[in-house]
């Protein structure tokens, strides 16, 4: 037959140039879905659309054309309350269901997403401007895998997570520049373990609403997932709703800090995942071409939200820069719904942020290289490589925004570690080296939540993802993600304990003077006097002491009055001892804890005179038990799409400060000290305020048995010492067992370096019961997770 006339006028021209053409992906289905809502989106609560009257609305725009796609209602406090109410009602049923039933529901949701995946990916790409390839080939399948993985976890929950119960209603706050996947990472584990969720999604982001609708249309359990659309400023409103037990926030570091301060004392858990910058460490032993692809994966493929800090070994600097620049020239930027672009657009805010950073870097003397096939019209920003930025310039300290890469050289692996660990960020990093020994050395010693060896940006539901330092210490995925939404069975639910009039500026600032208090009536063998710092008893900086009275009001003796300088000294000593202790094998640590237990046993008769016998005996047992538990840490994970293992490492937090409760002066002290030491931390402790002497007596044995500086005990005014520890930027974590006000202050002050804190909010704890005194919760809190990816192949 003769060829009909669907002619191609441009074919001749393209035949010569072989250029790429537009490869538009139709977004008709996304528009049709918006039409079903009359282009007017509300909230999705309790399985229904909620479109209250008289609310402001914001337009949802196509970030590239600026075309108005729909208008989105902005929530007010009542709407948030309605959503939380729905979640609370749903919780009663959902949390008591057998895990298998929840598993079934999650699996059904996964299938629902599978059925409507085209709608989901076109809507997400249309609205966010991200490359559709990334959403379609990575996000949507991963969302289904997440549901399936967590369905399995729900199935085995009764067995594997016995002793834990769901927290309750979870409030989730997500930032404006995020993909719906970030939300899935958090709602899947929460739903799996039996929590219900209220998500505060940024205005004008329909994909999460669609997901909620898909979940709602499953029919059963409508209220388990509720979406409220509104600005981040509604976060505190969400948090303050009665019934919300935990708030999970992901977003910018400063916003996280503010939220931490705002929510101090509200009695709820807060988990933060902050910042988006990543790090890539390229050594001379790397396959440079593959590492360059790693850089593309990290920043220029619409996968991550943030920019990249790139450390290149000096000997391969020129070669890497040449290859990187050549590669950049082939990147394509364009409309997200085009099947052949690497990078889409992220809206005006992200572009302005990048632009500002580049201008500032330039003014500070940096070289800027931009390349790629980028449309000239406004919403797009080209892939950008910045080099020669002076390390001391203000720009070099701030977080690198999308889509920028800031490259700087290093000379040796040791220097690379110093540079990489010398930032407040502790999110993710990759190490590129073909030398196994070097790669592992760097992987283990980087202070990051995730480290990939010779890869960048791999994710899997079974692998915990999180961070440390100012990146926030929350986890999602893997077993760690489940514990985020669980608490030991029997933990009392949230109680509002906020004291509005707590003055953060003056709490614990002044130390009341201590005066002589009459004749001592203590036992004849006076306990040593001084602060136990750096392995020996030292006189306090203030050169004064405080009287200790027994329960009858008789003066028992004096202990040293420690202050800010003593805390500083103790933290320094702990830092000095840290490398030696981390380097010890778990077995060696267990042996030392065993020796301490034996010494405590010998002291039993002396101590028992002042304490009940039972406490000494239990303390001895705790030391031995934690020594043994520390041997079994970390394990290997198998990941579906990766050849090779992922190591889930349990690493020490660093210098851990512990303010012990007043009650159980010996048992609580030992119960807290033992897990901390067993997991490789060095500690600064403030012992019981009413009866600090048993702790000091233990220190006499510590002095002879344990390395100097490993354990430091500072006595004195508890509020004052707590203040010093909580505000200390180089204390990596803080456990506080004391007053309501103290707990609130600790939470507020931890915003400084965003150290993980554990506070009792004035509630007593049964230290003599194994569940509370030696439960797995202590072990979980005493160490941090790191995921080390080791892809293999030859």
């Amino acid at each position, binding site marked *: *037959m*003769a*060829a*009909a*006339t*669907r*002619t*191609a*006028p*441009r*074919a*001749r*021209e*393209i*035949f010569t*140039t*072989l*250029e*790429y*053409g*537009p*490869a*538009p992906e139709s977004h008709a289905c996304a528009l049709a879905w918006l039409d079903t809502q009359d282009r007017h989106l509300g909230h999705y609560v309790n399985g229904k659309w909620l479109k209250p009257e008289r609310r402001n609305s914001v337009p949802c725009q196509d970030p590239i054309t600026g075309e108005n796609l729909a208008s989105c209602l902005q929530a007010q406090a009542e709407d948030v309350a309605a959503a939380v109410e729905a979640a609370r009602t749903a919780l009663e049923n959902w949390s008591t269901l057998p895990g298998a039933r929840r598993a079934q529901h999650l699996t059904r949701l996964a299938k629902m997403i599978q059925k409507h995946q085209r709608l989901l990916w076109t809507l997400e790409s249309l609205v966010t401007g991200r490359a559709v*390839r990334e959403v379609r*080939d990575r996000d949507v399948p991963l969302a289904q895998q997440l549901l399936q993985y967590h369905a399995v976890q729900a199935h085995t929950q009764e067995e594997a997570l016995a002793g834990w119960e769901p927290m309750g209603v979870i409030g989730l706050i997500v930032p404006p520049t995020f993909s719906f996947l970030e939300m899935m990472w958090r709602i899947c584990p929460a739903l799996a373990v039996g929590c219900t969720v209220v998500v505060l999604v940024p205005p004008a982001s329909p994909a999460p609403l669609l997901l909620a609708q898909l979940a709602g249309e499953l029919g059963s359990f409508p209220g388990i997932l509720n979406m409220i659309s509104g600005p981040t400023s509604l976060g505190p409103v969400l948090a303050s709703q009665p019934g919300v037990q935990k708030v999970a926030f992901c977003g910018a570091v400063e916003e996280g800090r503010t939220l931490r301060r705002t929510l101090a004392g509200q009695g709820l858990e807060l988990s933060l995942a902050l910042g988006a910058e990543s790090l890539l460490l390229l050594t001379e*032993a*790397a*396959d440079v*071409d*593959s*590492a360059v*692809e*790693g850089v593309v994966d990290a920043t220029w*493929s619409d996968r991550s939200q943030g920019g990249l800090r790139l450390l290149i070994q000096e000997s391969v600097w*020129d*070669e890497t820069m*040449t290859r990187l620049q050549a590669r950049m020239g*082939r990147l394509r930027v364009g409309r997200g719904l085009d*099947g*052949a672009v*690497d990078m889409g657009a992220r809206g005006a805010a992200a572009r302005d942020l990048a632009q500002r950073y580049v201008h500032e870097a330039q003014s500070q003397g940096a070289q800027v290289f931009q390349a790629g096939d980028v449309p000239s019209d406004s919403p797009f920003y080209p892939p950008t490589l910045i080099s020669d930025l002076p390390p001391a310039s203000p720009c070099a300290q701030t977080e690198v925004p999308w889509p920028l890469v800031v490259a700087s050289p290093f000379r040796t692996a040791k220097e690379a570690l110093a540079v990489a660990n010398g930032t407040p960020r502790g999110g993710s990093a990759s190490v590129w080296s*073909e030398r196994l020994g070097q790669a592992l050395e760097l992987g283990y010693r980087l202070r990051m939540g995730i480290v990939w060896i*010779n*890869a960048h940006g791999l994710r899997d539901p079974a692998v915990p993802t999180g961070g440390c330092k100012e990146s926030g210490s929350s986890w999602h995925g893997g077993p760690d993600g489940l514990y985020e939404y669980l608490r030991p069975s029997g933990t009392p639910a949230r109680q509002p304990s906020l004291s509005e009039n707590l003055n953060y500026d003056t709490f614990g600032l002044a130390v009341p003077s201590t005066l002589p208090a009459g004749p001592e009536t203590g036992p004849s063998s006076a306990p040593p006097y001084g602060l136990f710092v750096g392995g020996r008893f030292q006189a306090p900086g203030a050169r004064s002491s405080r009287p200790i009275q027994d329960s009858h009001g008789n003066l028992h003796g004096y202990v040293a009055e420690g202050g800010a300088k003593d805390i500083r000294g103790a933290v320094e000593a702990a830092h000095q001892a840290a490398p030696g202790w981390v380097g010890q094998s778990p077995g060696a640590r267990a042996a030392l804890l065993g020796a301490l237990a034996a010494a405590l046993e010998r002291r039993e008769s002396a101590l028992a005179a002042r304490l009940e016998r039972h406490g000494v005996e239990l303390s001895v047992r705790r030391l031995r038990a934690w020594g043994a538990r520390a041997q079994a840490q970390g394990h290997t994970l198998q990941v579906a799409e990766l*050849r*090779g293992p992922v190591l889930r490492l349990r690493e020490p937090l660093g210098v851990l400060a512990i303010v012990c409760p007043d009650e159980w002066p010996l048992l609580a002290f030992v119960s807290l000290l033992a897990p901390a030491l067993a997991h490789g931390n060095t500690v600064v402790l403030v012992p019981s305020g009413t009866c600090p002497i048993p702790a000091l007596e233990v220190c006499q044995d510590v002095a002879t048995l344990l390395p100097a500086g490993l354990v430091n005990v500072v006595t004195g005014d508890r509020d004052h010492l707590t203040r010093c520890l909580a505000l200390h930027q180089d204390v990596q974590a803080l456990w506080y067992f004391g007053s309501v006000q103290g707990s609130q202050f600790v939470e507020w002050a931890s915003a400084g370096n965003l150290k993980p804190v554990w506070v009792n909010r004035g509630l007593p704890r049964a230290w003599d019961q194994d569940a509370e005194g030696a439960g797995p919760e202590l072990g979980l809190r005493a160490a941090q997770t790191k995921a080390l990816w080791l*892809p*293999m*192949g*030859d």
Partner: protein
Amino acid sequence: MSLPLADFILYPFAVINHNYLSWISKVQVNHPAVLRRAQQVQARRTVKKEWQAAWLLKAVTFIDLTTLSGDDTSSNVQRLCYKAKYPIREDLLKALNMHDKDITTAAVCVYPARVCDAVRALKAAGCNIPVASVATGFPAGQTHLKTRLEEIRLAVEDGATEIDVVINRSLVLTGQWEALYDEIRQFRKACGEAHLKTILATGELGSLTNVYKASMIAMMAGSDFIKTSTGKETVNATFPVAIVMLRAIRDFFWKTGNKIGFKPAGGIRSAKDALAWLSLIKEELGDEWLKPELFRIGASTLLSDIERQIYHHVTGRYAAYHDLPMS
């Protein structure tokens, strides 16, 4: 990299700057990372509509239309040659306004014994499409060097202007890079004016690092093209292997200024595959490699699938088997 430029093609291995050898011995290719890149590169580019049609027609001009069977006779070689001259139905080309572009395949590739048939058939068809011959004990290369060299000379005498030689895999697997270099240098000499395409048989080299090293040696020894495979191994032209070879070609270009061609062969059967290969070249090497002098696709059934796709593009219908002439 600051290695000196050297025109090593004129020198035996010993004279080659030892920098190069030490550099080649240090090269490491990360296998899982290359696999990931291979997956990505296929998903990140696509061409549609006129672009697809134009790219497919371009792909036709890269094809080394191949028949390498034990039962080849002059009649099927002749038919192949006509198909090489008229790869796409004339009316389809007219509809695309491409009928005057003289679209033919890049070459015809046959066994040495069929070179005469091919040359004759192409002459009869009145075109100057080059004839490529495989040689040097194709496909295994396990014959004496003397006969392998003689094979090349005879094929050239018969009129082949491109020679696809296989390398001696045992030299790679035992790390005898100097010996490999010397052998390919002798192939080069035996070819005379004819183009030398060196088949690395990457499925039998053991590792991607070996693929990189063998590619480098083959280019240093004067190959005009490096080619992935014979089509007779169990693993043929795959993307990971191609990525490593293309990176070697790029490195060689950056070091010496010489552009060496690339030919994947074996297993490329669909129009979609062909488009992916074109975009791979475009991404890794750039547009300047997208011409028959620097890029070939060794294939036999690919052409009919491309023609079918062009038919669909032009008519909007899917072709029946009998709508398109056989090759």
